[in-house]
Structure formats: C-alpha cells, structure tokens
C-alpha cells in the first residue's frame, strides 16, 4: 500500500526525535541547572554577607572584650602589688584613671563596674544586687542581651586575676548594641531583604527594617528561619512561605563562643531569585523561538529533501502503471546531490532500458507476426514461382515468335512484364522468408560493409546526383549479423535515400557505438522530404510504399526490418537533424 505524503512527516518525526527532543531535554536540564546555580549563588552571596556582618560584630565585641581583659589584667596586677583589700587612695586614683581611659577607648560601653570576688561593686557604675556576676562564670564571657530603656545591651565580663591566676575582682561592662543596628543598616541589601540579629530567645537585637525593637517578642514560633538559626550550630539556609532565608549562629565565632545569638537574612523569593527566574524565562522564550525556527527550517528541509524523492516516485509510478513517463511529468532529479541524484540516474537508465526492451519485445512480436506471414508467403511463393516461371518462359517464347507489329505482341509483353514483376515479388517474398534468427558466424566488420556498399552503389548514386559522405567510427567491435544481410539492408536504405532525393542531394552514412556500448549503430541521413511521423511505423509494413504504383514491391523496408529483427537489432526512423530529411538508424548487436 502506497502512502503518499508520509515521507515528509516521517522526516519531521525523525528530526524531532533525533534533534528537537534531545535538545529540549538537554535544554530543560541546562535551564534547571542554571536556575539552581543562580539560586545557589544568591544563597552563597547572602551567606557571605551575613558572615561578613557576623565577623564585623565579632570584631567589635572582640575589641571591646580585649580592652576590658587588658584593663582587668592591669588592674589585677596593680591590686596584687598593693596589700590585699587595701583600697589606698593611690589605688583608687589609678583605678579611676583606668576606667576613664576604658570609657574613652570603648565608647560602646554604657556602664563599667569593678566587682569584688564577693560580688560587691568596688568601682564604677552600680549593678543590681540580684545579678550574680562573680560566680558560675567559667571565666570571662559575653552574656545574654538585656534591654535598658528599650535599647539592647549585652554584659561583657572579664575576670581580673593575679599573676598566679587567683581571682581578685571582676570587670563588668554593659555594651550598647546599637553598633549592630548600624552595621545592619549600612549593609547593601537586595530588594525586599531584611537582616535580623536575634538573641537566644529569638527576640530581635537589631534589624535592618524600621520595626522598633522596643517591646519586641520572640520570633521563634513565627519565623522558621529564626527557629532554625537558633537550633543550628553553624549556618544554613531554608525556603519557607515564599521567603528564602540564610542564617548563621554567632556562637560559631571565636569571640562569641557561648553567645546564643543568630544573624538572619530574609528575602522574598520573588526578589531573591528574580535574576534566576528572569534568566529562566528568557531562556525558555529564546528556546521556543529557536524551536519554532528549527521546526520551520526542518519542514523546509524535509520538503526539499523529499521533493526529488516524490518526483522519482511519480516517475516510477508512471513507469509501473503507464508504461512510460509522460511529457508533463516533473523532471528527473538527476542533478540532485548524493544518493538521490545517483538513484534518479539509475531509475532513468532503468526506464530507458525498459523502454528499449519493450520496443524490442514489440518488434519481436511484430517480427514473429511477419515471420508467420513470411512462412505462408514462402509457401505460396514457392507454389506460384514454378507456374510463374512457366508463364514467363512461354510469354517470352511467344514474343520471340511475334514480330514488332504483331497484334498479340502488346498482350504478350504485358503478360511477360507482369509475370516478371510477379517473379520479382515472389523472389522478394522468398528472401523475406529465408532470413534467419540470430547470427552464429564470425563477427562482421560494419565499417567495411558500409564502404563496400558505398562503392557498389557509387555509379548509380552518381547518376542520381547523390553524393555519399561516410563518417565511420574507428575500432568498432564486430557486429553480430550476417554480412550479406547487413549489406542487403545498407543497399536498401541507400537506394531508398537516393530515391527520396529525386533532385539529388547528400547522403550521410555514419557508424558508431550506442550510448550503452552494447550495440553498433549505423545511420543513413538524407536530404529528402522526410517521413511523415504518422507513417513512421507503417512504412515498415510489408507491401507499404510511397512510391508510384508498380515502381516498388513495398517489401524493401519490411525485409530490412525483418532482417534486423533476425539478428536481434532495432531499426527506427526520425527526422534528420535540422528537420530536413529523414534519418534511418539501424542498431546492431555486438558479437560477444
């Protein structure tokens, strides 16, 4: 079953499967990966930001704590040198100077106190009695956030120990955490982003937005990022409720070890991943455009690719169903590149050979028909020939006895002439019937036969003012035909040409190899009136003649064609080049 038009679709399907589908899959994966990478970059960038901020907070606290540690160590040395418990005026003055210098060096200290090992405030600002800062400290520390007047502060404690490591007092300072809010405010944040620093209870210590800190409550239950940050020991990220958050537990810093704070950066995913999503969208749009272009180009390519195949299919259909290629059929794509051109050439060659074979078969069939006629004619001619000889002989005898003026002479001459003509016809019929199928003898040199024929007919042709031009191809292989039959054909064709040129003219005789190199062709081209296309088949019929009645038997061309079929050749007639005259072409098989 022939499915027309399906090849283009198949080519498109193949294109889709082979190129478009993998491209789409790979494109999807690439887009997804690019999006993930961009989102990771956002997270990485935000983490870097909070690391830097955490480091900045750590640095400030570290400086403050180091200043307090140094002051405590200095005070401990001074106090150790003095008598135990002796608060001499010099010691008091020195301590006062130390505290002033400390306040000057660390303006962030809102209060500074020096507490004895018993918890009594010795110097500086007062401390609430219930604040047990001298015990359970495991050394110096940074305490939890407390709110003084709505402002977050943190307690920094340094132990003042003597040279031997013995505790002689405790330095307690309240550090104002405004600097964290200032650090957050100076951070360059993306659209919609906010920074938070929360204490261990999830209460904001500092934030980059305008929400006031005073009266703030814990965000642990409301903000998953706060919850995750305080439960984590390191840093991380999460996405929840349309917000992407990165966090870092500040206890991971050296100075802040033991501090239960966390820093969190939150940003709506719509803003945080805006670039990633725009890139994804643009890539998809570009991909769809490219896909559409690819489909159009693919369709055009498929059409272009299948067009010559369709033409070949139509020509093959014509060969299969109509026996030949119609004139309005699309041209064969013999010039197409690659296999298609090669295929077209081969199909054309096959078509031509099939045509020739059909012509040969038709000719053979015709030859068989003629052979039957010839056999019958030979039988009839043989039966007629003897009585006719008798009639002709007696007619001639009777004529010899009759004088020129004898009244019967005219009748006897008519009998004699007609009998002679009948004998000629009978002779021709006998020639026709005697031709053999195939040639089993030596190969025949066609050029030599042509030359011999030309020489043989030369006088007669000169009389008819016909000049002969020979164009003989050299090195022709031997022909598979009997020389006498070929010569009979050549003589017949040359005489016909001379008769066609009643006013004289030029007869061109050419030999050569056929295009497929399997046969020899001999052409006789005259300058006569040519042959009407409608008669080009009929003139090979026996007893058909265009000559005047009685001037020809009408068997010449029939005998020629019969002989040609006999050695499996072919004979055809066309117009001479230029359209003036006729050309008879005889194709003779090569002797293998």
């Amino acid at each position, binding site marked *: 079953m022939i499915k027309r038009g399906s090849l283009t679709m198949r080519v498109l399907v193949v294109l889709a499967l082979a190129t478009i589908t993998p491209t789409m899959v790979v494109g999807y994966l690439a887009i997804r990966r690019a999006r993930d990478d961009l989102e990771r970059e956002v997270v990485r960038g935000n983490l870097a930001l909070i690391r830097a901020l955490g480091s900045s907070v750590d640095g400030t606290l570290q400086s403050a704590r180091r200043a307090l540690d140094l002051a405590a160590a200095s005070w401990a040395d001074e106090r*150790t040198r003095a008598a*135990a418990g002796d608060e001499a005026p010099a010691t008091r003055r020195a301590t006062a100077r130390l505290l002033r210098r400390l306040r000057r060096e660390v303006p962030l200290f809102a209060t500074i106190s020096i507490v004895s*090992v*018993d918890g009594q405030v010795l110097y500086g600002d007062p401390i609430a009695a219930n604040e047990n800062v001298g*015990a*359970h*400290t*495991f*050394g110096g*520390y940074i*305490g*939890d956030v407390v709110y003084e007047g709505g402002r977050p502060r943190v307690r920094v404690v340094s*132990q003042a*120990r*003597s*040279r*031997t*490591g*013995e*505790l*002689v007092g405790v330095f307690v300072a309240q550090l104002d955490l405004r600097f964290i809010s200032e650090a957050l405010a100076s951070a360059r944040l993306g659209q919609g982003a906010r920074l938070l620093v929360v204490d*261990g*209870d999830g209460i904001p210590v500092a934030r980059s937005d305008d929400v006031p800190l005073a009266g703030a409550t814990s965000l*642990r*239950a409301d903000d998953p990022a706060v*919850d995750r940050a*305080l*439960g*984590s*020991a*390191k840093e991380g990220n999460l996405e929840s409720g349309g917000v992407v958050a990165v966090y870092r*537990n500040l*206890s*991971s810093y*050296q100075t802040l*070890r*033991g*501090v*239960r704070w966390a820093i969190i950066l939150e940003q709506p995913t719509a803003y945080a991943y805006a670039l990633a999503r725009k890139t994804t969208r643009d890539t998809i749009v570009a991909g769809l455009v490219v896909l559409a272009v690819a489909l159009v180009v693919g369709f055009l390519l498929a059409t272009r690719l299948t067009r010559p195949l369709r033409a070949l299919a139509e020509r093959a259909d014509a060969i299969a169903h109509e026996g030949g290629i119609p004139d309005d059929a699309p041209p064969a794509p013999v010039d197409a590149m690659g296999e298609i051109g090669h295929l077209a050439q081969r199909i054309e060659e096959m078509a031509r050979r099939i045509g020739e074979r059909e012509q040969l078969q038709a000719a053979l069939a015709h030859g068989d028909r003629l052979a039957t006629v010839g056999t019958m004619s030979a039988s009839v001619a043989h039966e007629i020939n003897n009585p006719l000889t008798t009639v002709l002989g007696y007619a001639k005898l009777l004529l010899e006895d009759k004088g020129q003026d004898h009244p019967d002479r005219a009748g006897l001459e008519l009998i004699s002439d007609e009998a002679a003509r009948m004998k000629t016809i009978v002779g021709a019929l006998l020639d026709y019937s005697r031709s053999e199928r195939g040639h089993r003898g030596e190969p025949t040199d066609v050029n030599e036969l042509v030359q011999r024929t030309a020489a043989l007919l030369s006088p007669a042709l000169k009389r008819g003012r016909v000049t002969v031009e020979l164009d003989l191809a050299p090195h022709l292989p031997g022909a598979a035909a009997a020389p006498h039959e070929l010569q009979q054909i050549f003589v017949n064709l040359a005489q016909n040409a001379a008769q066609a040129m009643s006013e004289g003219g030029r007869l061109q005789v050419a030999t050569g190899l056929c295009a497929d190199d399997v046969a020899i062709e001999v052409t006789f081209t005259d300058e006569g009136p040519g042959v009407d296309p409608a008669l080009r088949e009929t003139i090979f019929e026996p007893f058909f003649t265009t000559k005047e009645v009685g001037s020809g038997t009408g068997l010449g061309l029939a005998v020629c064609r019969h002989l040609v079929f006999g050695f499996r050749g072919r004979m055809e007639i066309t117009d001479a080049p230029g359209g003036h005259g006729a050309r008879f072409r005889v194709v003779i098989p090569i002797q293998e």
Partner: protein
Amino acid sequence: MLLGLVVALGPACGHRGEPARARPRLRLWHTFNPTETEALNAFLAARGGKGAVETTLLPFQRGQTILGEVLAGGGDCPDLVRMDATWIPELARANLLSPAPADVASARLWLPEASALASDGGVQYGLPQRLDGLALIYRQATVKNAGVEWPPPTMGALLAAARRMTGGGNHGLGVRVDGYWFAAFLRAWGGELLDPATGTLGIDQPIARTSLERFSDFFGPAGIAGPPPPSGDEAQDEFRRFRAGALAVVVDGPWAVTELGGGSTDGLGVATFPPAPNGTPAAPRGAQMFVVPRCARDPAQAWALALELTAPEVQADWARRFGLVPATRGGLANAGPFVQSFYRALQVTRPLPWSPVSAEMFDDLNPAIAAVVAGDATAAEALAGVARAWTRLLERHGVHAPESPADAGVTP
C-alpha cells in the same frame, strides 16, 4: 465518602466539639557540639508527625548558670535539657528538676557507670545519653613501632613510653593545660582535688604541688607534650598534631574521636588511663544526661522524646558515626569494636568528687595551672590561690573547710 468526610473533619474537631489546640512545641535545650547538633536536627526532622521540637543550643561554659537562672525564673522554661551530669546535683537540690518516672527510668538497660551519674540522693533525674571520661587514644602503629610497654599499667610506664616516643619534633603525649586533665594526673600520682564529704581540700597538699610541677614539665622545652598553644586553640591544635602524626598518644574523651581520627577510627586504639598507685581509677568519668525541669510545660512528651533520643539504635548510630560511648547496653552492643574498647577504658575511671562548688572549681583551677605552665607562678603560689578561692566558694555554700595543715601561706 462518609469515611473521607470523617477523616477530613476529624482534625478540625476537638474534645466536646471545641476546636483542637495545636500542641505547643517541645523546647529542647542542649549542649551538643556542632556535629552532634546537626545530627540532632536531622533526627528531629525525621520524626515527622510526632510533634515539633524547638531546639536551642546552650553554651557549655555558661550552661549551668543560664539553666539555673531560667529554671528558677520559670518563664522561658525548656521542656527537656541535655546537659552535663555534674550539673544535676545542684539543680536537683534546688528542686528545679523532675525525677524520672519509674517507667521511664526503667525503660532502658542503662550501663551502670552512666546510671550512677544520673541520680542524686538516690533519686534518678536524668536519662543518660552518653558516657564520657578520659582515656588514652593512640596510634596503634606508632606505639607498636616504639616497642613500649602498652597499655601502660602505671603512670611511670605511660610517661616512659611518652618519653620514648618524643623526639624529632614529635611528642609522645597530648595533654591540655586544663584542670580536668590535671585532675587525672593528680589522682594518678596519688592526690585528689578535695574530699566532698568533709570539705577538706586536696589541692593545697604537697602531692598536688608536686603533681602540678611535674604536669607543668610536660609542656617545657624537653617535655613530652610540647609547648601549649594559645588559649582557645587547645583542642584544634591537638587534633591537628595528632592527625599529622606529631602526637603519638592523646589524653582525651569520646567527644574528640571524630576530630582526632578525621572521621575514621582506622588505626586508632584506646587504652586505660593509668590508675593511682593504690589501683584506684584516676581518670575522671562523666556523662551527658537528658533531664526534665519542673517548669516544663509538657513533661510527659519531654520524657517520651528523651526515650527516643536514648533508644539503643540511636545511641549505636551516633556511636558508629561520632565515636561516642552509648549509655545503654543495647547501644553499646551495636556500637562497634572501637567504641566498645573505649567503654572498657572508661570502666577504669572515676567521677570527680561532687560538691556545691564543682562547677566553679575549674574556673579558678584553670588559670592557676596556666600561670604555672607559663612560668608566671610556682605551683605552690598558684595552688594556694586556688585553695583560697575554693574555701571562699565553699563558705558561700555553707561548707567550711578545715584548716589545711599544708597551706603554704602565700598571699595574692
């Protein structure tokens, strides 16, 4: 369809038709290290629908102080706390902890060494999470190649082995300049920090001074431990040196195994820290506990979570991953040979004496040891100051230490 309707409406309907109230999230406070914290968070995340848990990392250094203040205040009370076993007595005597229900306490087959640390006054307050203590962690190949007597039966054998493995930039023994480590050596040489029963101090005894001098010599130019790193970097310095092969043996606990081995225990061995001359275990033993404060909002759920976290399979998993020693027999059985060998080493340890000042003792002892190691003070000077500080602390808690006959009389 009816079933579907019931299922759909079910969660929206509470007792007697009242709207169901969301159960408050359990609050878990803990002192896990960063690696364990991540493992804990993963464990809790995998619990799924068993209820949300709000975790808070409690700084170990100030953990007892913060806990004491918060539990006494009751406002922001955690439901469950994972903490050091030595914090139990003070919190329990302040009536801030809930005794473990009998069915909870008996739900696991606790190792006796851990179980003993979970109680105070005969009442069990904690569910042991892991067993801690000091032992000798060593490189098997290094020790074998050195041809030393191993495991060392006495402190003399340990120091001789360490001396033999010291040289060429490498040191035989990794020790921290820390009171906890010093306590192990002090007891191995026959001393003690204090007698909690009588309040008598041992830190100012001659054996303590001699021990501190010998301990300080570890870190001298020709010492077996090498010079100490800057304060705050002791642990990381020890891990780096051990992993690099510059330390043959370290005195450390199970908590350090992951870092010491770089994630693997291949080629590592554990040996008992030498006992005192009289055979008494010298190395300190400790444990980590889950306790439920009296102010917990949902004690039943808190104990249930504690049981989940002390399940033998969880303890075995953490043992295999982090080298921690489980506190249950089931956990230990599946903990792997390395951890089981660590447990055997911890069997030859002894808890530090507990007193009301236990938590604060090291606050004064550590700077004193550091001063001696740095050469800023003699052992006598430093330990005299420690004795004064501890006496003051004991007096603050109503314990009056008897006059020490060995007091050197050094004034600060």
